[in-house]
């Protein structure tokens, strides 16, 4: 717990110390959405407005994932480059625990940022989304999947070191996944898509917010399955990569 608290404090100190950069990042995210919103509106003459809530939810989730996973990846890359990663591996806490703490901090901070982004988007678009308490379920399962994705990205950094371009590709893949409304697709496509990270939770969230009817058991079971499977995949790959890296002694290579 002390280690987790210290990780939080470190991140907050950096945010405070580089406040201008932190605010600019938020402003850029909001501007990006507004660009998509105004651009789409002028081309499709308001068609997008009908699914604006879905767009806001999708975009907010995308910023959460983007800042969690990409930030985790780029932070780990920077730590590998500077040598901090080796020093972190010399701490008596396990590497799984270490990266769990880091993911936890990243997810919490990203979540906080996303709430600000979401509020700003609702303010600028005038589309106020009615969040109900039920949203908490898909949110929790999404966070579990994010931990799994975090371990996967860290594993890629540890194994391949320079994955900056891959992280950029991932951002667009998430965007595609999150903005596609799989809940409206054919049953086969919908079922298949539920295996993709976060899809059942995002669909469930959109259905809750739009007030549409949905099968609770269906989304709950797929969300549980999706979160557990991606967490296990993440941990399994991380364990394997850790062994390879220690065998090759490539932890400090960059």
């Amino acid at each position, binding site marked *: 717990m002390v280690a987790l608290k210290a990780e939080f404090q*470190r991140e907050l100190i950096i945010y405070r110390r580089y406040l201008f950069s932190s605010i600019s990042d938020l402003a850029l995210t909001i501007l990006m959405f507004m660009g998509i919103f105004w651009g789409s509106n002028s081309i499709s003459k308001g068609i997008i407005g009908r699914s604006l809530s879905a767009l806001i939810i999708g975009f907010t989730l995308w910023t959460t994932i983007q800042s969690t996973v990409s930030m985790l990846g780029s932070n780990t890359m920077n730590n590998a480059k*500077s040598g901090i990663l080796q*020093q972190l591996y010399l*701490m*008596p806490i396990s590497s799984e625990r270490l990266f769990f703490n880091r993911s936890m901090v990243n997810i919490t901070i990203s979540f906080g940022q996303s709430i600000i982004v979401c509020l700003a988007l609702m303010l600028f678009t005038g589309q106020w989304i009615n969040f109900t308490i039920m949203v908490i379920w898909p949110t929790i399962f999404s966070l579990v999947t994010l931990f799994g994705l975090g371990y996967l990205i860290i594993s890629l950094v540890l194994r391949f070191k320079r994955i900056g371009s891959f992280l950029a590709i991932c951002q667009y893949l998430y965007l595609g996944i999150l903005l596609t409304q799989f809940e409206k697709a054919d049953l086969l496509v919908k079922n298949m898509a539920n295996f993709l990270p976060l899809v059942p939770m995002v669909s469930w969230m959109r259905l809750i917010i739009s007030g549409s009817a949905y099968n609770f058991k269906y989304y709950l079971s797929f969300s549980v399955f999706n979160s557990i499977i991606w967490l296990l995949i993440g941990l399994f790959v991380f364990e394997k990569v850790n062994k390879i890296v220690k065998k*090759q002694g490539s*932890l400090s290579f960059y």
Partner: protein
Amino acid sequence: MLLKVRNLSKSFQNGTKAIEDLSFNIPAGKITTFLGFNGAGKTTSLKIILNLLLPDEGKIYFENKLLKNDFTPLLKQTGVVLESTRNMFYALTPMENFIYWGAQRGLNKKVARKNGLELLEKFGLLSKKDTVIFELSRGMQQIIAICCALISRPEFLILDEPTLGLDIEAVETVEQILKTLASEGVAILLTTHELAFAQRIADQILLIKKGQLIYSGSKADCLDKFNQEKFITVQFSRVLSNEQQALLESIAKIISINNTTYQLILSNRKDLSHLLGFLTQFKLIDLKTKNKGLKEVVDFYMKGKNEDGSIKSRVSA
């Protein structure tokens, strides 16, 4: 013994044998210096001890307990400063680093602050506690890195090239810090290329060449062995006669440097008073004695060089 390393071997995928059958001990309260050329296997050995690298074979015992998959007992009691890497967050201040790294070792904020302040005071950097690491000099950064490694008051400190890139003053400070820590009972294992620094600081030396340990023992014993022969350079006020030279040669081996200067090599130190008695009958301009240091030891073992710089035909321990 705090740490025992037994029969450690490691080869890399490309077939390079990094270290072979390495065995040594690290005692508490002593400074052990790992000496060897680049690529000799010093850092590889350290990384294996620290579980950053898996060995092909070998065992590591910490406080007489065999470490298998779980290196927590060793890591809990070991502070490490690695070479050419950032061992701390440069965007944070020393105090923020102490709190962070202390927490990773299970210390709460209060204890980490207290320990950190004590360390800064001890090493004369208290005024820098709130300065971002980026703004400190290279020497100060290295001292703060050592402080970070010491934040949980470990029993064992590992330093990879701690004086690399430091100026003379900073090297002296690091030297003092390490000597103080050793006197307080901390076991220190360090690697260095600076033989003068090693000569001053080491209690024990480990000489490694191409992955093989070629000497392991106390520095005093090692130098004693090398200084069995005494080298004395004498400058006489005039040229010695053949008779005088012959008499001198009956006590020591002599090498003429110029007409009036000779290098005398005593194979047994017991003959020293005999020689000095003989020299009293001459008027001397100068007399110098020279002890062999770690440089000569390393030259002998690593390069196979004799005192006069000639290459030894065979290197033996």
